[in-house]
């Protein structure tokens, strides 16, 4: 069982990071939402395996919460926003796609360097994977700062959140349920608010390209 569990955690943690990197590659905004859903599934799998392995009911509830919110509600809400302007694409990100992919590779290397001391503190198989969580956070930041569409920036924000969650699952086998609950509700709230904001933006300006909002006009 432990062998299988280790293998599953490995695969799921890598999937979280790989999906984040794929987010840098895809331009179609709707594909980004699909990737976010996939990331939610992988994250829930990490939590679930950690819960089963630690016989931790609280962590099990967290896993279910992650599954419902990050693989269910949030992608559905964002998917509705995305469906309103079909064919929305990340036309010209601030840093072009090949360059941002290469930067992502450098960020992953940075995360490994930064994460090594964490592993030294508590050398288990699970903390060894913590750099993957850190790399996901950094990739999320990259997505957040280089994209022009509001929706892709939201996806970047959520990738950061998923990265933080992955890091906590791997380092400490999850934070207490109440903290996770608070964090998840925050994310949900952010998504609801941003969704309302995007709706208003579209009603006022007819699009959600943030570059059009850089100067004031009467």
């Amino acid at each position, binding site marked *: 069982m432990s062998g299988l569990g280790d*293998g599953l955690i*490995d*695969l799921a*943690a*890598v*999937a979280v*990071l*790989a999906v984040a*990197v*794929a987010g840098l*590659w895809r331009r179609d905004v709707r594909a980004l939402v699909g990737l976010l859903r996939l990331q939610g599934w992988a994250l829930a799998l990490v939590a679930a395996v950690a819960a089963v392995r630690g016989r931790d009911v609280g962590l099990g509830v967290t896993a279910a919460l992650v599954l419902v919110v990050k693989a269910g509600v949030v992608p559905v809400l964002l998917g509705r926003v995305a469906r309103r302007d079909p064919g929305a694409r990340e036309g010209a990100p601030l840093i072009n*796609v*090949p360059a941002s*992919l*290469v930067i*992502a*590779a450098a960020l*992953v*290397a940075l995360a*490994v360097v930064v*994460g090594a001391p964490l592993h030294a503190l508590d050398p288990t*198989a699970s903390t*060894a*994977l913590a*750099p*993957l969580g850190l*790399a996901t956070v950094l990739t999320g930041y990259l997505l957040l700062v280089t994209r022009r569409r509001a929706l892709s920036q939201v996806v970047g924000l959520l990738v950061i959140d998923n990265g933080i969650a992955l890091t906590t699952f791997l380092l400490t086998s999850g934070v207490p349920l109440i903290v996770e609950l608070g964090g998840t509700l925050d994310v949900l709230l952010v998504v609801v608010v941003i969704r309302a904001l995007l709706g208003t933006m579209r009603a006022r300006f007819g699009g959600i390209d943030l570059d059009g909002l850089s100067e004031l006009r009467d």
Partner: protein
Amino acid sequence: MSGSLLSAVQVLLVAVGGLLLTGVMAKVRARAEGRVGAPVTQPLREVAKWLTRESPRAGGASVLAAVPYVLLVTTGLAAAVVPLAGVVTAGSSGADVLIAVFLLLTGSLALALGGLATGTAFGGMGASRAMTLSALTEPALLVGLAALAVPQRSMDLATILRRAVAHPAGMASPSHVLAIASLLVVVIAETGRLPVDNPSTHLELTMIHEAMVLEYGGRDWALLSLGQAMRLGLLFSLLATLAVPWGVATSGAALPVLAGVVLLGAKSVVLATGVALIEVRSAKLRLFRVPELLAAAFVLAILAVVVGVVAR
């Protein structure tokens, strides 16, 4: 069976198998598109036919004449040293990852020089594009192979395969999966298949590979086609072997080697069918989008290395 005999078998296998794989891919495409398609042996027959013709040569004839031989020799050498059907080949200790990549790259370089030699617009364009893409593909190929080498603690392909056969659980590791995914993209780019390059077009402004070889005819063309088919056969069978190292003969006895040869053929045909189905389903990428795909393959390979180091 001695190592050098196995090497000879592998070269023959890659040459005939490469031509047959090209035929299989064309057949799969045709069937998927609702056509009957040419028989699988069609590329073999074409090469045999062109071998009997004389070769017309344009300007830069000496380079033009040399290119097919350089391609054939480097690819044949790579097929001889790289372990495919078994790890008892003559160059067992010399089948370094870097050597295999170097031999393949020498072939690409020869092709590009041949494209430039005639001084035609198409040749130069194709050569420039091929070299640009090659500069992006090689890092991904090297890092992807390094990702497979890291867990086995060796850059020697024979050692990598021997250890992979001994520990088949490594095949399901995330690092292995990522590395193979990256290498698949690299192989598609290196063999000039869709969505990177379209092997079945001529005289289109988008073509890469075909633009370099437009000026060849007759016997030169036959040798060049053979060289390209060998390259395809080598890359496909190497990828199939690295992805699923089952059945690779680890001893020189006749029976395991025979089983290795048969299994290698089966794995390569499965891989070729898969790639052909990808081709049917995808459109050619715009040239300026191809670097994005190759950069993605490069990052996948980097991830594979990192994960291989981290998740141990």
